């Protein structure tokens, strides 16, 4: 979970079995063709409880109901999440379509609650075939969706390539973009956005939390625990400058407070220092 907070995504390679991958390829092609037709296959309504989405028989439903996928969803937004929307991304072989870097939806409110977006690749995507581009560590920034389109390249960004059945789980704030498909085969990706309906507090397997959840006194210039959440939160993405890295640590600590219910959590004293000043000023 600390890696998700830091990087904004988790990656699960070849998570979905080939039998389901093949069936999903057929089903999402149908969904793409019929989504907006009066008759035919339609996605679930927005707000539908996840458990009611894509009932059997459905290959998309079979993927979403895999125990591993259910575990991912439970950990991050809960199985009582609701369906926001999905979309089938299809780029024919040789397509030169280049999407600008963007964030989905609108600029965030200040609360720490988050949606997840499952990016599911039901077939192999080899390097150079232009899989989804994304920028690790971008998810906690407050930007307008169209404002980041000018960033053609950012150091540390990734372009997906991997085996069939791989799922990327994004915090909804992740900067990303579809890329041209210079490959010889069509490229397909199915995206699902899910909304939590209850606080996302300690919903993942927290059996190691007590051991890894550092004390708020943990400080890089004083006493530092190397095997701790704080250590993960000190990860510096290569495109972040010094001030940005410190701000990122603050934002990660704030999100961790929400996820753990520990309002006193801190890394390197940033939040504690500010809160101490507020208390002192308030007492004046």
């Amino acid at each position, binding site marked *: 979970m600390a890696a998700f907070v830091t990087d904004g995504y988790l990656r699960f390679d070849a998570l979905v079995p080939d039998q389901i991958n093949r069936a999903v390829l057929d089903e999402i092609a149908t969904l793409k063709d019929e989504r907006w037709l009066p008759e035919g296959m339609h996605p679930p309504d927005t707000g539908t409880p996840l458990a009611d989405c894509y009932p059997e028989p459905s290959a998309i439903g079979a993927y979403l109901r895999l125990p591993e996928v259910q575990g991912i969803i439970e950990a991050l937004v809960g199985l009582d999440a609701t369906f926001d929307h999905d979309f089938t991304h299809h780029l024919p072989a040789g397509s030169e379509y280049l999407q600008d870097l963007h964030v989905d939806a609108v600029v965030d409110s200040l609360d720490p609650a988050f949606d997840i977006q499952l990016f599911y690749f039901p077939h192999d995507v080899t390097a150079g075939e232009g899989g989804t581009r994304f920028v690790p560590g971008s998810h906690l*920034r*407050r930007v307008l969706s169209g404002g980041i389109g000018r960033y*053609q*390249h950012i150091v*540390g960004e990734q372009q997906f390539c991997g085996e069939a059945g791989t799922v990327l789980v994004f915090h909804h704030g992740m900067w990303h973009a579809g890329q041209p498909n210079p490959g010889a085969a069509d490229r397909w990706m199915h995206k699902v956005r899910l909304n939590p309906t209850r606080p996302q507090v300690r919903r993942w397997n927290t059996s190691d939390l007590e051991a890894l959840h550092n004390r708020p006194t943990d400080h890089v210039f004083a006493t530092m625990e190397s095997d701790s959440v704080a250590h993960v939160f000190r990860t510096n993405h290569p495109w972040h400058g*010094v001030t940005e890295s410190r*701000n990122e640590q603050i934002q990660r600590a704030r999100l961790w407070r929400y996820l753990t219910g520990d309002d006193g959590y801190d890394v390197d004293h940033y939040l504690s220092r500010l809160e101490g000043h507020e208390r002192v000023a308030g007492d004046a």
Partner: protein
Amino acid sequence: MPERQQVLYLWANGSGLAAGVVGWAFHDGTEGQGPDLPDDEPPYPTGDAALCDGWCLLQSAPLVAPAPGAEHTNSYLDYEFVFERRVAV
């Protein structure tokens, strides 16, 4: 001989031209008739290096104090430098 403009955006991890480049974008008004830039790595390690290669600085990012309440929130890349060079076509 007519000239056309090539524009290079560099984003750095500090406010000066000697800071390391962390992002870039290239816009080629010559439509491929002028010199190209690599696509898979920063074309220059710093803005200074771009100057040494003949790029002319058009604009650097103003330094703006954080808005009250937004002091600890990151948003866009702060340090943007815009360069141009004119290429005969």
